[in-house]
Structures are given as C-alpha cells and as structure tokens.
C-alpha cells in the first residue's frame, strides 16, 4: 500500500534560493492510464494492476488512509500491496459525496459505501473472468488481486481483467460478506502512511511549494470584533524580501497581510508595520466578567432539554439534597500545524492547497468570494497536522484566496502560533449547576441540571424564530451529555440557558460533551459518597434494568454502558485499595459516557497527589469501549490514548482567558498541554460487538476529566469543580 505522489522538480523561484521545488499533487483522474475500470467514484483499476482508492475524508491523525482501504478491501479482495490511495477533491465525480471530516464520522459515514464499492468491483471482475473463460461466475472466486476459476485453478489478475470488467453490468446489490467471514476488518493494521512521516517526506499544507509562490503572514486586529483603522506600510515595504502589503477583510480576524519572497521576510515585514486598530464594540470584554454573568444566568429559566417525571417536586420530598456548580473554561484547539493555505487565483479560476476538514465549504466559500462557479475552484486537501474541529472553519482559506486575488500570484498565507492561539473558534466556556436528591435509603430520586454558556450548535446558531420554539434544544438534542444523560432517575430535568459572548466558538474535540460530562460524572460521584455508596455500584444501580433509553432522536442501550463500566472496573482492579506511598496520596476514579448513541466508554483513572505540594500525577488510565464493530483495533487504541491525553490537557492545564477584548494566552508556554513526563499509561479494552461501527475519534475525551477529579477526591477528600485543576487547591 503506497501513497501516489508525483514529485515535480522545477527551478526554484523563491528569492535567494535557486534550489529545487518539491510538491505533491493528487493525480487527476484524467491523467491516469486509460482505459480504466471505474465502477464507482471510489475506485479505479488500471491494466498496470494498480487499484486506486480515493480517500473521501481528511487524514488528520485518525487513520482514514488506513481504515478506509481496509473497509474497501474487505470486499474487493485485492492484494493489499497493489492499492494506492489518493485524496478526493470536491466536485467532479465526487459531487454529492461527503468529504467533510467531522463528528467522529469517518468510519460510520463510509463503511457501507466502501464495502459496496469493493463488492461491486469484485463482482464485475468475476463476471469479466467468467465471460473470458466461458464458465458460470459462481465457479469463480476473487482472492488476493486475482479471479480464480475454482475447478481448473486458472487465474487472471485484476489488471488483466480491468478492461473487460469495465464492460460488465454494474450490479445493483452485490453480495456483501457476513461479518463472521471478515478477514481484514477487525485485524490490527499499522498506519499506511507512517513511512513518509518518519522520514520527513509527508506533505502537510505548510510544506506545499508551488512555482512562483510567495509567502505571507498577517498582522491581525487583536480585539474581538475590531477592525483595521489605518496603517503605514513604508517600513514593512523597506524590509528586504517584502513585496506587497495588503489589507485583508474576509477572515474571522481581519488585518494586514505582508507578502514576501519567503516566510521570514514576511514575519520581519509584519513586525515593521505601523497599524492603528479600531477596537470595536468589545474592547473591554473580559472572560471573568462573562463568568459572573453566567453565574447570574443560573437563576434564569432555561430552554427545556429533558423533563422526565417531576424533578422539582420530587427533590423537595428528598431528605438528602445536594447541589454543586462546575466550571469549564474556553479552550483552544492548537493543532501543532498552524492554520495555513495556498491559493492561486487566475482570472476566473482558483486552485487551493489546504489542510482542511471542510473541502466542500472551502470550495463554495472561495467561489462565493470570487463570484465564480464552484466548479472553477479546485481544492487539494493535503495531510493535516491535526484538526480537532478547528479545520472545519474555512476562514484561513478564504483570506488566502482574497490575498491571491489582490496580488495576482500564488501565495501561502501562514498563521503564526500566536495567531492560531488567539484567533480561533474556541470551545465555549460553560457552567453546569446540578441538584440531586436521595431518598431515605440513599437511593437517587431526582436530578436537575442547568447548563449556561455560549450556544454551540454544530449546524449554526439558532435564529430568533428557532428560539421561539421552547423545544428547540430538545429537538436539537443539545447540550449533549445533559440531553442524553443515560441514567435512570425517576425524576430528571435538564435546561439550557444560552448566553452568547463576542468570542467565536466552534466544535472542539468531543464538541459539547466535555463540560457536561465533567459535571455529570463528578456530581454522580458526589451523590454516591453522600449516599455512602461505592461510585461504581451507584452507577450500575442507576443503569438498571439495562434497558434501551429513548430520548428525542437518541436510543441509548444501558446494557452496553453497564458492560463497559464492569469491564473497566475489573481490569483496573477497582475493589483493591491503593496504598499511600512516599508522601503521596493515591486514589481511583471512574467515569463513563455514551458518545452520540453508539459509542460506550468507561474509564478508571489512578491518580496520586503530593501531600505537601498538591501536585497531581495521573499514573494509569484503564479504558473500556464498546463502539460496535471495530475496523482496526490498533487504530482504536491509538484514538483512546489520544483522546485521553487531549482531555487530560484540558483537565490539568488548558484555558484561554480574554482581557480587554483580546485572548491572553498565545503559545505553548502559557497554554500548556500534556507532555511526555505527564503522560499516563493507558490500557484499552474492547468489548466484542455485533453492532454496526460507531465513531471513535472523540469518544475518549469526555470521561477523563471527571475520572481524574473523582480519583483526586478518593485520594484527598477534596472535590474539584473547576477546570483546569489548580494544584494549590490541593496543598496540605
């Protein structure tokens, strides 16, 4: 299995370089050897015995360049080594096929289509061979890139058969394998694109170089909602290597672009700009003050999210009542490859190279800006140095298009790390207040949860008309984690008070779940301790009778959640106490979640806290998962490890504050993330499942914060209700 890459060696045109240019382009269908066998948009097979698979999702570390070929080849029966992959581009023969990568949907969204595409091709290859041999197709089988006539042992390769297969009738419903007979799906397959990564040959967006390409960076208005007033470009233009200075309006953070022969010259030119900003209406915006407004909003009635039984009345009757408020701050995505895009606008067409999760939107927004048809915009999706939701937004691509149009040159517009950290679509901050009631025997009777925060609707913010419908959020199924609370409370009420701010927000890894699940799973722990019960047993009771919960559009199988809780507890040796060691207090905490109906996960964290310093170490995380059929267990384990580290960064370090209308943090020194020395040992256990595959790119994120907070409580008796966790609160 290899990546198809065409490497162009051309004379360099960047100033002072005079060296070679290297670039990777997906081979266009037209350039392939004809005639070809192209039974669907996903596959072509050529007489040179190459099977080409178009990858219809962006590779951003979740492994689509491995799992998508696996699903295809399960049915196709090609030789793994003869498959090459290429990145699909929006439009052309992918019109109508989704290329957007979001919602942990890469597997779920392609599983059926790729299996059908593989089976279709296989049946047509078999039909071609049977025709050639004049034998019934039922006597032929496909195996390892060949069709074999079983009685005689005659064989032809897929390459031999490509031309005649192209003439066969396309079957409507080619037979699909029984999952019991899978030989590829469910096996451990290593990343197909590992070798170019470890040799420095993989081409991310930032690495693409076009002939004649210029390099640009921008000075951006630091104030949320602010604008460019005036600027003086004289000193910038006097900087060696700087060519032009251009105001840019189209992105989310407007400003002035400095275009130069190479990146460093652009950066130097940017520093030499003199700019006056119009701070706009939010120049005094302060996230601490927003938090105070959110606290006040907790007293307001919210939109209905869930209402089972009569929780307000039931809680009055409870002899034991608890209430707590949990806080989750703004978070940046900060993928390690900063935002960047190359645009080349030529008259009435445009070509774009971009690390994006949203190729279709890149195409449509570029076309709209330029006033040209979408088909006139070609979007090449490169490898992504992380996405995590930030790259669903196309602001950084559209401003590169605006810049290329202005200067009449291909140009790479690069965001600095500080740009990336301060001008994002942040995970919104959030407050969750939960009240719970226990009856005389300590049984949980009532649960009332109120969420306050900026709205985070993935499909766009609701209109006033939408909000006139009191059931809007229930129908939308949000906030996730509160709406789809899996526990069986006799009385359960959930509300949401949207409180928007000037901060642009958007989906972060696990979207709405991290704050709601932090609060829900922490408060369950509080209730269990108040009831004098083991937190695991408390959850197991609350999931009885292991039935299917139906809420709005969601169906949640409590038996699957029970199973992963039990498995995680068993593997973590939940019942065995942890002894204190060398000045440290040790504890275990458990948390679980159901991610969008079809992914069930439980985690047990083992944590120690320094008796004096209050410093936190997360030693081990045991993770049990049922997300239906697993395509690649090795990939799933990687996503579990990845999601846990992601969530742990937010648990222990991450936050973005706003002061005087601007983001405070701007690089990895003040927006800290988990590094090697804080990385726990992660063990992942998979429940074998016959359910259809679920998505797993985000599932492991939400439970880790409450698992750690609950472990800290078990170790120290101190309850964490605010993230990131401040060690000074845990000092002796």
């Amino acid at each position: 299995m290899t990546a198809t890459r065409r490497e162009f060696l051309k004379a360099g045109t960047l100033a002072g370089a005079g060296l070679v240019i290297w670039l990777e382009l997906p081979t266009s269908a037209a350039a392939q050897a004809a005639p070809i066998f192209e039974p669907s948009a996903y596959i072509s097979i050529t007489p040179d015995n190459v099977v080409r698979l178009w990858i219809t999702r962006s590779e951003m570390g979740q492994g689509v360049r491995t799992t998508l070929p696996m699903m295809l080849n399960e049915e196709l029966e090609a030789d793994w080594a003869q498959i090459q992959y290429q990145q699909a581009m929006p439009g052309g023969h992918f019109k109508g096929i989704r290329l957007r990568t979001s919602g942990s949907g890469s597997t779920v969204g392609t599983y059926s289509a790729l299996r059908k595409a593989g089976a279709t091709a296989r049946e047509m290859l078999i039909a071609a061979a049977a025709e050639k041999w004049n034998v019934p197709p039922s006597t032929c089988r496909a195996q390892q890139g060949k069709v074999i006539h079983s009685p005689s042992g005659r064989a032809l390769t897929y390459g031999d058969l490509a031309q005649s297969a192209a003439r066969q009738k396309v079957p409507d419903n080619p037979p699909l394998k029984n999952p019991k007979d899978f030989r590829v799906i469910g096996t451990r397959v290593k990343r197909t694109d590992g070798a170019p990564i470890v040799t420095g040959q993989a081409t991310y967006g930032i690495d693409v170089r076009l002939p004649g390409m210029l390099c640009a960076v921008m000075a951006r208005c630091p104030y949320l909602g602010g604008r460019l007033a005036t600027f003086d470009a004289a000193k910038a233009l006097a900087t060696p290597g700087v060519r032009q200075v251009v105001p840019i309006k189209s992105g989310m953070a407007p400003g002035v672009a400095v275009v130069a022969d190479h990146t460093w010259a652009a950066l130097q030119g940017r520093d030499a700009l003199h700019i006056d900003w119009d701070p706009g209406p939010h120049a005094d915006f302060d996230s601490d003050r927003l938090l105070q407004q959110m606290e006040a909003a907790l007293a307001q009635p919210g939109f209905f999210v869930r209402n089972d039984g009569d929780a307000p009345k039931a809680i009055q009757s409870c002899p034991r009542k608890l209430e707590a408020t949990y806080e989750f701050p703004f978070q940046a995505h900060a993928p390690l490859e900063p935002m960047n895009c190359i645009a080349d606008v030529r008259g009435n067409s445009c070509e774009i190279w971009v690390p994006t999760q949203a190729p279709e939107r890149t195409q449509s927004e570029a076309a709209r800006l330029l006033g040209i048809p979408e088909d006139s915009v070609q979007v090449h999706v490169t490898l992504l140095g992380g996405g995590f939701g930030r790259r669903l937004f196309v602001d950084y691509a559209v401003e590169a298009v605006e810049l290329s149009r202005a200067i009449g040159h291909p140009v790479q517009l690069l965001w600095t790390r500080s740009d990336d950290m301060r001008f994002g679509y942040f995970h919104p901050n959030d407050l969750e207040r939960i009240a719970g009631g226990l009856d005389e025997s300590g049984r949980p009777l009532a649960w009332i949860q109120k969420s306050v925060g900026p709205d985070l609707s993935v499909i766009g913010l609701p209109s006033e008309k939408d909000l006139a419908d009191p059931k809007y959020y229930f129908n939308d199924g949000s906030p996730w984690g509160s709406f789809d609370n899996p526990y069986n409370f006799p009385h359960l009420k959930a509300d949401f008070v949207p409180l928007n701010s000037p901060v642009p927000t958007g989906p972060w890894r696990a979207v709405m779940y991290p704050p709601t699940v932090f609060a829900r799973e922490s408060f369950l722990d509080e209730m269990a301790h108040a009831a004098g019960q083991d937190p695991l047993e408390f959850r197991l009771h609350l999931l009885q009778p292991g039935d299917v919960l139906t809420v709005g559009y969601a169906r949640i199988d409590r038996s699957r959640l029970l199973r992963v809780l039990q498995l995680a507890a068993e593997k973590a040796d939940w019942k065995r106490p942890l002894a204190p060691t060398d000045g440290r207090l040790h504890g275990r905490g458990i948390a679980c979640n159901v991610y969008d109906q079809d992914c069930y996960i439980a985690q047990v964290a083992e944590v120690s806290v320094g008796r004096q310093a209050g410093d936190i170490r997360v030693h081990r995380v045991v993770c049990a998962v049922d997300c239906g059929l697993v395509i690649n267990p090795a990939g799933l384990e990687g996503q579990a490890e990845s999601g846990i580290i992601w969530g742990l960064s937010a648990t222990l370090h991450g936050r973005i504050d706003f002061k005087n209308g601007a983001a405070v943090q701007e690089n990895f020194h003040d927006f800290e993330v988990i590094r090697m020395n804080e990385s726990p040992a992660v063990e992942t256990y998979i429940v074998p499942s016959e359910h259809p595959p679920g998505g797993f790119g985000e599932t492991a994120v939400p439970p880790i914060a409450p698992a750690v907070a609950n472990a800290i409580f078990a170790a120290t008796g101190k309850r964490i209700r605010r993230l990131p966790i401040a060690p000074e609160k845990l000092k002796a």
Partner: protein
Amino acid sequence: MSTFTLLVNGEKHRIDADPGIPLLWALRDFLRLTGTKYGCGMGVCGACTVHEDGVPVRSCQIPLSATLGKTYTTIEGISADGTHPCQKAWLEEDVSQCGYCQAGMIMQAAALLRRKPQPTDQDIDSELSDHVCRCGTYQRMRRAIHRAAREVSQT
C-alpha cells in the same frame, strides 16, 4: 544580506540571506527541507528540532549567523533510507497520528540514544518533555524509544 555556507545532511549549501533568519526558515524556504516543522517559533514545542554537531537544537532559535562552522542533520538526513533505529521503531510501534511533531521527536530521541544507549523512563521523560504532541502519542513513543534501544544494543 550576507552569504552563508550551510552544511546540512552532508551537503554544502550557499545561501544569500539576512544573518538573522532562523535556521528553521532557511531549511524550509531555501533548502526545501520541509521535514523540519514550524510549531511555535519560540523554542517551546520541539517540532523544529535538528542536530547541530550531533546535539539536538531548536532550529527556530538559531540565526544563520550562528551556524558558521557547524554541521547540521535534519530528519531527511538522519538515515539514507529511513532505517535509523528510531525510524524503524516508530513504524513498528505505529506511533504517528497526525505526525506533524514526529520529526522533532525522532531527532530528540536519536540524540538521547547516542548519549545514553539504554535510557530509563525517567531519561525519556526529561529528554522528550520539551516537545508537544497534540495527538498524545507519548506512550507509543516511549515504547518506540525502548525498542530502538534494544536494537542498538543488539548490533
């Protein structure tokens, strides 16, 4: 503008450039060695790590004027054919996710193994903790470094 002779991966390159340009951008924009990545620009993420006379350094913090007489190795030059023990171990342990940080990680790990062929977990922590992997592949990197160390000790 000055003329510099930069010795990278065993080859001499003449560059006419501002003496203040960081090695990172000279490698990427002039020599087309894009395996060395920009991540933070202030020496706190490790993505731009290269070897200077065999010692791992942050190429975003080294101006061209400081490169005189030094020899540099980048991820493209750490082995002729991708067979450095770290590169092999990284593939065996299936480390990479998005992969963007991995060149810097491998350069740092390779230097650690040269200095300390049998590193402990603590050695790995102290050597690699100036690097950021946003995908969180630390556990697999740790395994890969131990695997590479075993290979080095057997040869």
